[in-house]
């Protein structure tokens, strides 16, 4: 279904810096430097049509920022990404971009905050339809909204209800229905289930998978739950402090993690069926993104770190079919 050569989404050296400096006067008087927060620092990846790339990593490592960059909520400071061969970042600003927006949608984390509490579900789902003038006739819109609701396992009659009348899982399905309204090809999902219970999470994940099968959707799936990631993704990117440290096929990553951080993360997963076995916690504290460690950002917590790690920043290199940014792996120390 997709041309093998051309990925649907390609991010090249994507970076986003936030200026979190104190006000100008304070800086001048207290001689404080400008404070720049490198939320995302040179991230590159491809996503094939119909596939799912998952991004994992600790809180604050920049996953959401990548997601927001991809849907045009943020402007990249550096780099860019293309969608279906078009430079999407530039296109978002043009009239053409409106068409592009139809093809890229997002599902948010918090099912309670992502639906306008004052709108009926029908209006919420119809908004993209009206906005993009996909349909204008009211009855056609109603028809389409009903279809969408049914496709996520809700009743067409739920149209006239308000979000607060639904449970968290149902709301998340409404969000998905809204995202699907414009028949997008690419769906960015920022922790779509992390606020949900496992039983509800299963429902949502199943629907997402079904939709992918039916419509050939492409996902960027963000989570910190590795079990969930393993379930939904085809490829997994591991992020640490704004950068990708490992990007690999799902099986490869889970079976033979290369980067020490990836290994630690995998170790930290609670083992369900071996009760009572303590997992190995990731040691140390999360570094301050405003003042990232020199060299490899992970080196203060890394058991394999050496002098090179603390001075030279590793770059992503293809090693054995995967891409990993680690001196130790590169040098074959691990």
């Amino acid at each position, binding site marked *: 279904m997709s041309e093998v050569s051309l990925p649907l989404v390609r991010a090249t050296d994507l970076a986003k810096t936030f200026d979190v400096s104190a*006000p100008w*006067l*304070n800086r*001048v*008087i*207290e001689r404080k430097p400008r404070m720049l927060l490198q939320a995302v620092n040179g991230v590159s990846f491809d996503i094939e049509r119909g596939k799912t790339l998952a991004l994992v990593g600790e809180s604050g490592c920049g996953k959401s920022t990548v997601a927001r960059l991809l849907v045009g909520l943020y402007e990249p400071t550096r780099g860019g990404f293309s969608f279906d061969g078009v430079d999407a970042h530039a296109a978002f600003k043009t009239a053409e971009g409106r068409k592009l927006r139809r093809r890229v949608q997002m599902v948010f984390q918090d099912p309670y905050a992502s639906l306008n509490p004052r709108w009926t579900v029908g209006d919420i789902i119809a908004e993209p339809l009206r906005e993009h003038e996909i349909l204008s006739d009211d009855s056609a819109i109603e028809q389409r909204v009903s279809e969408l609701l049914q496709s996520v396992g809700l009743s067409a009659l739920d149209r006239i209800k308000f979000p607060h009348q639904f449970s968290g899982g149902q709301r998340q399905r409404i969000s998905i229905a809204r995202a699907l309204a414009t028949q997008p090809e690419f769906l960015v999902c920022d922790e779509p289930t992390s606020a949900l219970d496992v039983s509800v999470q299963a429902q949502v994940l199943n629907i997402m998978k079904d939709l992918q099968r039916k419509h050939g959707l492409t996902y960027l799936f963000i989570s910190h739950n590795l079990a969930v990631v393993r379930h939904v993704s085809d490829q997994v990117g591991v992020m640490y402090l704004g950068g990708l440290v490992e990007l690999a096929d799902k099986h490869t990553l889970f079976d033979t993690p290369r980067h020490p951080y990836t290994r630690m993360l995998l170790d930290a997963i609670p083992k369900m069926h071996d009760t009572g076995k303590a997992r190995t916690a990731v040691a140390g*504290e999360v570094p*301050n*993104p*405003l003042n990232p460690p020199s060299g490899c950002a992970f080196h203060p917590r890394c058991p394999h770190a050496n002098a090179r790690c603390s001075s030279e920043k590793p770059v992503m290199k293809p090693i054995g079919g995967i891409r990993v940014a680690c001196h130790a792996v590169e040098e074959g120390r691990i």
Partner: protein
Amino acid sequence: MFAFILQRLAQAAVVMITVAFISFMLFQYVGDPVVFLLGQDATQEQIKELRQALGLDQAFIVQFWHFLSNAAQGEFGFSLRQGTQVSTLIAERFPATLELALVAGVLALSLGIPMGVYAALKRGSFTSQVFMTLSLLGVSLPTFLIGILLILIFAVTLGWFPSFGRGEVVQMGWWTSGLLTAKGWHHIALPAVTLAIFQLTLIMRLVRAEMLEVLRTDYIKFARARGLTTRAVHFGHALKNTLVPVMTITGLQLGGLIAFAIITETVFQWPGMGLLFIQAVTFADIPVMAAYLCLIALIFVVINLIVDLLYFAVDPRLRVGKSGGH
């Protein structure tokens, strides 16, 4: 911190220049002081001459510039009505207003905060309902009506308190105080109560709302879970956290006290700045009006600054500190 104060001061300067400009501009339309100075029988030539002498015939912007450059040196020119330096006039009146506002403020705070705390802790009890209802009455009664009714009841009918004036004052350098004599307290009672009632109810309602908010927070719940005494929870933890937001509003309210004093001072012939201002309005005494407004703005700015500094003292989150996490 230093930067913060500096920033505040710069802001204050802007605010005050704006205030000065607006007030000065508005006054151009309030009335013509010359009519007063010369009386009804003056001829057109006399009027013209006086206008010239007073500089009232100059372009607005020139007048304003004069005003501003003088004001920067603390000099607001001469009262057109009294021919005295405005700064002297204001300095004479300031103690009276400040004492009135202080007594009213202390009254409002010392009653308002406990009542608010009580109403929050005993939400739904009879007394707290009574407090709430009374407080509504407090905001529903116009100040002037309160003043007049108090005079009618306590001065005229019962004869317990004097109806006007400041009573005996003690001179201490340039400051005059009515708070050192029994007579002075006797005189300040009614005006202070009048002035305090509105603020009291506001503070009480505010404290109650904030307190309820704080009582619902996790750290209060956790403090309870730690088995701390009710006293410690309510007064050690809840009250202190309540007072942080209450401070801002209270600060503004205290500034408001000074401004509100206009009505109270008029009703009770309290020889303060408000009375001076009202009289200046009647006589279109532009320098006095402008100076008063600038002073009010200054007071607001100063109070805001103090409140912000208090924040630093009370809330450790604002203090620049060695931060362990992010």
